[in-house]
């Protein structure tokens, strides 16, 4: 009975440490890429190492798309604020 209880605690403890560990890593990477906390927590907790890789890939894809949006906005701002196209803009 006592051995069974110890095994129960040990195995569940191992699984919880594994899940929380990958969740923590995914949250760290997710916050680096400004991904929603709830999403990255669930991805890390349920998918483990696969979730960690997927978080990195989504983070890269998201930062790429947000980077594109930023460059478009800056060009628009330059055009409207000066009233003409800036010859030195890239």
């Amino acid at each position, binding site marked *: 009975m006592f051995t069974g209880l110890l095994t129960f605690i040990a*195995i569940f403890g191992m699984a919880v440490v*594994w*899940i929380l560990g990958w969740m923590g890593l995914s949250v760290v990477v997710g916050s680096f890429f400004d991904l929603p906390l*709830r999403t990255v927590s669930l991805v890390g907790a349920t*998918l483990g190492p696969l979730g960690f890789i997927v978080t990195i890939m989504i983070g890269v894809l998201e930062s790429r798309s947000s980077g594109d949006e930023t460059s478009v906005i800056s060009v628009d701002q330059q055009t409207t604020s000066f009233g003409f196209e800036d010859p030195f803009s890239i």
Partner: protein
Amino acid sequence: MNTESQIQPRLLLPVALAALVLWGSSLPWITVRTFSGNERVYNLTDLRGGVAIVMTIALVVLVGGTIGIFKRLTGMTIMSLGVAALGWMAAISGILLTLLWSLIPSINVAGLDLAKATLGQGSGVVITVVASLSLAFMVVRQLEPFKTYAPSTDIPALPFMVLVPLLAIAVCMYSEWLRLGTEGSAVQAQVAGDALYGSGLVVLALWLAVGLWIGALMVNRSIMVSIASGLTVVVSIVVGMYAGFLWAGGRLLDWLVPAKLEKWTAVSIEPQLYVVLVGTVISFVMSIIGLFSKMQNLKITLGARTPGSVRFYYSDVLGAGLILAILVSTVVRVR
């Protein structure tokens, strides 16, 4: 007919996947093959307290399923977290024991000296891990920003076409490919796919390919499919060469042995070896096709209904099929 019920996932398939994970815990997780030809299998329920662990997870799944009737995503998340714990237990147990075996080969496990045996993972691990990952994938694809990368009802067809042969290979890697023995005595050597030289790295790459294809189901971008295809091509070639050489060697031995040696009289090539050979060919061809963008756009719509007068959701049909398979398999095992 793009209603709210069509956007939300149906509940039967998640419940069926959770049931599959629980059923997988009763299948072999660890296989010990001794050189005397004996094979012993162990799973979670063989441990003291193992049944209590399965019951606790079943309770979590039950609670998640009940909540899922009212709040679909919350219920699915609870179920997914519960079965993820079981899935990871299966994966970690295999990794830990294999590592222990490679570091201390003379260790005794359950009264067996592992120096005189080979250790491998059982089919239960594959079923438990894949079913728990599939459920997790169903949950995650409902969340932002994953939602924008993978529409909630359409699923790319190509990853499924590659995952089926890849998983068949993964299952067969842990079983015997070739059996050498004598008719009269108990001396027998079982050559399993995971017991071959260097197969540990190959199995790792195989699982990485499976993970990438599951990722390709979630992140519908051509770069993901291309990376997964590239790795699968390499894995297919390596595993195909393993299987091909073993098949040729077995055939050659079978041809030579009766005339040259009297003791080794039985060389049998197991059906799993043929499954691996066919699986590698299919996964190789599908991965090559996957490198072309046109095939990457093929989709299966799980949220839609089947054609005909009596209409069902595709996901419900899949879920019902899984539950039926579990029931039939349980009845067969009990009998």
